[in-house]
C-alpha cells in the first residue's frame, strides 16, 4: 500500500514524463510507444483526430487504464498510483457527476474521496460554484442540469482538491459559448496561478489561444511537439497570398505564375499557396499591371494551426 505514495526520483522541472507508453485494445494498437514531457506550470495541448489515441493516453496518465508497455510519471509519482491521483484533477471526456445527487453532494463526495477537510471543502465548493455560475443551483439534482452545467460541475469536481496537475479531455466539446468561455478563462487563470494543465482537444483555436506547447498525435503516434506558433510556421508550404481582382481571371493563369504551388478560388478571391509569399506579391503586382488588371485586395496569410494539424495528420495517413 505504501509504495503507491512513493515519489520516484525524477526531474523536478517536469510535471509529466512518459517513455514508450503503449496500449493495445485486442489487435488494435491504440497508443504506440509515445514519449513526451510536460514542464511544471505548462499548459500542454494534446491534439489529434478522432481515434488517434488522445483519450487513451489521458486515461493511462490518470490511472483509469493500465499501459501495456512503457512508463509515465506525474509529478514524480508513477501514473495511476495513489500519489499521482491525489495531486491530479481529472475532467474526463464526458461529464460524469452522479445525476441522482445534487451538485453540492457531488462535490462533497469528491471532498471525501480526496480527503479534503469538510470546512475547506465547503469553502472551496462555494467559491468554485460561484466562479462557474452554479451556486444558485447547487442543491438541485444534477439530472436537471444542462450539458454545459454538468461539464462546469465536472470541472468544479476536478478542482476541489486544489490539484497540481489538471487533466482535461475535450472540456469544451459541444458546449454553448458561455460555458466554453467560462472554462477557457478558468484554465487560463489556473495556468497563470502555476497549475500544470494537460488539455486534450479537437479545437485548434482553443489550443492556439491557450497552450504553451502542443503535441499532435495520429494513429497512436506523436507526429509533432512544438509551440503552436512554431508548428504553424514549420508548415511553410501552406503559406499563401489571398488576392482579388476587379475583373474575372482564370485559375490556370494564376497557377502558371512562378512560385505558385496551387490555387484555390474562395468566393471572389483567389488563394495562391507558395513557399515565397513576398516574391509572389511582387509577381502578382507585375502580372496585374502588364495585363491591365486592377487588384482590389492582396494579403499574405500564414498557415493556421488547423492547416498545420491537417498537413501533419494527412502526411501520416499518406505515408501509412
Amino acid at each position, binding site marked *: 500500500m*505504501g509504495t503507491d505514495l512513493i515519489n520516484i526520483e525524477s526531474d523536478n522541472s517536469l510535471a509529466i514524463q512518459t517513455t514508450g507508453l503503449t496500449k493495445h485494445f485486442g489487435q488494435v494498437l491504440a497508443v504506440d510507444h509515445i514519449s513526451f514531457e510536460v514542464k511544471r506550470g505548462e499548459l500542454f495541448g494534446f491534439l489529434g483526430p478522432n481515434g488517434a489515441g488522445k483519450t487513451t493516453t489521458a486515461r493511462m496518465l490518470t490511472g483509469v487504464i493500465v499501459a501495456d508497455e512503457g512508463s509515465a510519471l506525474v509529478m514524480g509519482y508513477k501514473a495511476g498510483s495513489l500519489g499521482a491521483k491525489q495531486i491530479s484533477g*481529472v475532467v474526463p471526456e464526458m461529464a*460524469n457527476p452522479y445525476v441522482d445527487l445534487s451538485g453540492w453532494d457531488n462535490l462533497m463526495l469528491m471532498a*471525501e474521496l480526496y*480527503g479534503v477537510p469538510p470546512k475547506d471543502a465547503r469553502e472551496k465548493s462555494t467559491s468554485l460554484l460561484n466562479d462557474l455560475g452554479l451556486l444558485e443551483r447547487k442543491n438541485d439534482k444534477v439530472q436537471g442540469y444542462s450539458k454545459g452545467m454538468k461539464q462546469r460541475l465536472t470541472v468544479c469536481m476536478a478542482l476541489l482538491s486544489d490539484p497540481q496537475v489538471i487533466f482535461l479531455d475535450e472540456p469544451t466539446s459541444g458546449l454553448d459559448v458561455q460555458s466554453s468561455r467560462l472554462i477557457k478563462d478558468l484554465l487560463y487563470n489556473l495556468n497563470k496561478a502555476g497549475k500544470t494543465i494537460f488539455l486534450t482537444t479537437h479545437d485548434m483555436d482553443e489550443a492556439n489561444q491557450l497552450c504553451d506547447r502542443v503535441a499532435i498525435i495520429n494513429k497512436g503516434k506523436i507526429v509533432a511537439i512544438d509551440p503552436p506558433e512554431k508548428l504553424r510556421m514549420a508548415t511553410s508550404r501552406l503559406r499563401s497570398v489571398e488576392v482579388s481582382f476587379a475583373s474575372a481571371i482564370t485559375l490556370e493563369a494564376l497557377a502558371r505564375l512562378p512560385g505558385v504551388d496551387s490555387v484555390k478560388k474562395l468566393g471572389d478571391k483567389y488563394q495562391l499557396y507558395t513557399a515565397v509569399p513576398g516574391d509572389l506579391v511582387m509577381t502578382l503586382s507585375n502580372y496585374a499591371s502588364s495585363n491591365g488588371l486592377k487588384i482590389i485586395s492582396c494579403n499574405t496569410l500564414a498557415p493556421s494551426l488547423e492547416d498545420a494539424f491537417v498537413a501533419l495528420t494527412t502526411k501520416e495517413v499518406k505515408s501509412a
Partner: protein
Amino acid sequence: MKTISQQWWRLLGITRKDIKVYYSKGPVVISGILFPIFLALTFTIGRNQSTDSVITGLVGMTLFFAATSVSPMILPFEAQARTLERLMSCPVRLEIIVLGDILASFVYGLAISLVLIVIALFLGITISAPIVFGVAVLLGALCFAAMANIFSVPPTNLPATTNMIGTLVRFPIVFISGVFTPLDQLSGWGRAISYISPLTYFTDIARHSVQDKGFLPVGLDLAVMAAFTVLFLVLAMNLHQRTMTKRI
C-alpha cells in the same frame, strides 16, 4: 498507517454515495420488504407450517434477497453512466471501491431485515439466543453482500445481464437452503446439496434462535458462514481487480 485510515474514510464515502444513489429510493426499499413476504406466502399457504417456521425462513430470505438484490448492478450502472471512470481516477484503491459497494449492500440488507425482525417480535416471536442471532444477521448480511458482488465480475456494462446472472444463482440457493423445508426434513442428497449454500447456515442459526431446533451445531454454522464471508470478500476484490479496467 495514515494511508489505511485515509482509505477507510474514502470507503465510507463510497458506501454513503451508494446508499444515496442506489438504495434510498422508495421502490427499492418497498420491494426489498414485499418481495420476500410474497415469496414466503406463496410457499407456505396451505402447508400447515408454524408461524415460527415461516418467520425463520422469511428472515433468512429477506436478508438474502435484500443483501444481494442491488449490489450486482452497481458497477454496470456506474460504468454505463461513466461515473466509474470518475471513481477510478480518484485516489481510492480498487478494493475500496468494491468494498464500498459491498458495505452499502450490507447496510441495506441489515436495515430491511431489521424491519421484518421488529415485525416478528411484535407478532410475539421470541428469540432465545439474541446475541448469536445478531451475530448471524451481521455475518449473513456481509456474506450475502460479498457473494452478490461477485455476480458483477463479468465486465458487462448492462445491469440487466448481471441481474440475470444474480437471479440464476439466487433462486436455486433459496430452494436448496432449508428455507422452506428444515434441514432435518431434507433427504440425504438434498441435505448434501444444501451444505454448499451459505444461506443454509444462516437459516439453521435462525431456527436455533427462534425455534430451538437447529440441525447443525451453532458454532459450526457461524464458522462456515465466516469462512464463506472471507472467501467471497477475497474473490470479489481479486476478480474485480482483473476486470474493472475492461469496463472503461
